[in-house]
């Protein structure tokens, strides 16, 4: 039952999820939502890795996903810590307010 889903289904699904994530990063101005959308994009890529690893019979893709998960966990922790700090400073979570480095 499980092996009968073609690879292209998974690739297309992860393309859709990636596009939704990218669209979310672009249209939402709330930093928390933007971080969530980045996570969603990363997960879409993970799905591609695992689908390929399954269909090419290689565990390398799964090792990659394992590393990506660790990096994603660090990224979220540091990102949210920075966000809390920024919120203290500017009293806002709108990404348009954090433009002091624009020059």
């Amino acid at each position, binding site marked *: 039952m499980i092996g009968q889903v073609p690879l*292209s289904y998974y690739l297309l699904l992860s393309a859709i999820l990636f596009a939704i994530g990218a669209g979310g990063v672009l249209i939402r101005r709330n930093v928390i*939502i933007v971080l969530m959308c980045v996570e969603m994009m990363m*997960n879409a890529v993970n799905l591609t890795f695992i689908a390929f690893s399954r269909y090419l019979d290689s565990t390398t893709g799964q090792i990659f996903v394992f590393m990506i998960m660790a990096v994603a966990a660090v990224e979220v922790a540091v990102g949210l810590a920075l966000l809390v700090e920024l919120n203290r400073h*500017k009293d806002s979570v709108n990404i348009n307010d954090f433009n002091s480095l624009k020059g």
Partner: protein
Amino acid sequence: MPGQIFFLIVAAISVISALGVIFNRNVVHSALFLLLNFGTLAVFYFMLNAQFLGVAQILVYAGAIVVLFLFVVMLLGADLGESVDTWLNSRNLLLIALGLVLLTVVGTAVFENTIFGAADETTMEVVEEFGQTQVIAASLFTDYLLPFQLVAVLLSVGVVGVVWLAQHQQRQRFRRIIAVLDSTWAEETQRPNPDLLRVNWLRRKALFDFDQVEIIQATDHQVEELVTMVENDTDSWRRSRYRQMRCLVDPDCKLSEDTVRMLRHTFGEVKNLVHKGVMA
């Protein structure tokens, strides 16, 4: 066929929950939709014989990351949503169109790909041991030992960094920063007590987030420089604060009437410095 139907149902839930993350005004609801999205992806991992990563997905993403998001939302206040009209404007519609273009490009790439045809034949055979935790572990601890250790280093650095950020923020919270204009003063900063930081503006000649201005010994020209810089500040948060800010001027510092008028115009309150206190 039951496999495909099951896939399509879970895929539909996945896409709907992904859309729910974006098109939701309440940040808490967005985080819960994200949880659902991560859950469906774990289901796909199980379907693809990646049991270890399926469990890791639930533990790391659903267990740690979503909880972290919810924690931050609680910390900052849940009413952070934007109103619909701020994000459904013409610029964002253009960006949605760009997202659709991205989707089309990726989708075409998938369908044009030669792997599409070839992979369908390999779908039937399931290697007995494939994706089991032992296989992954064997690969992780032999071929990929160095990347594995580097990830461990990265995690440690991340922990230290986050702790440092949190401490730093606590130290800064009660601090008052005073911009001091004093040509007799050579140091860059002075810290008479832990909550107070005096910065020598004449040495720094730049804007920073000060809470008060003290003019001890400065020429008209130097004061004008400060006022010009403050007037041209583009930072909206700081701009809103200058009108409430207090500016203390030492009576011994002979400033012209024009300069004092300029200071009155820029800052909320201009007073004479009564005691030199910490400077003495």
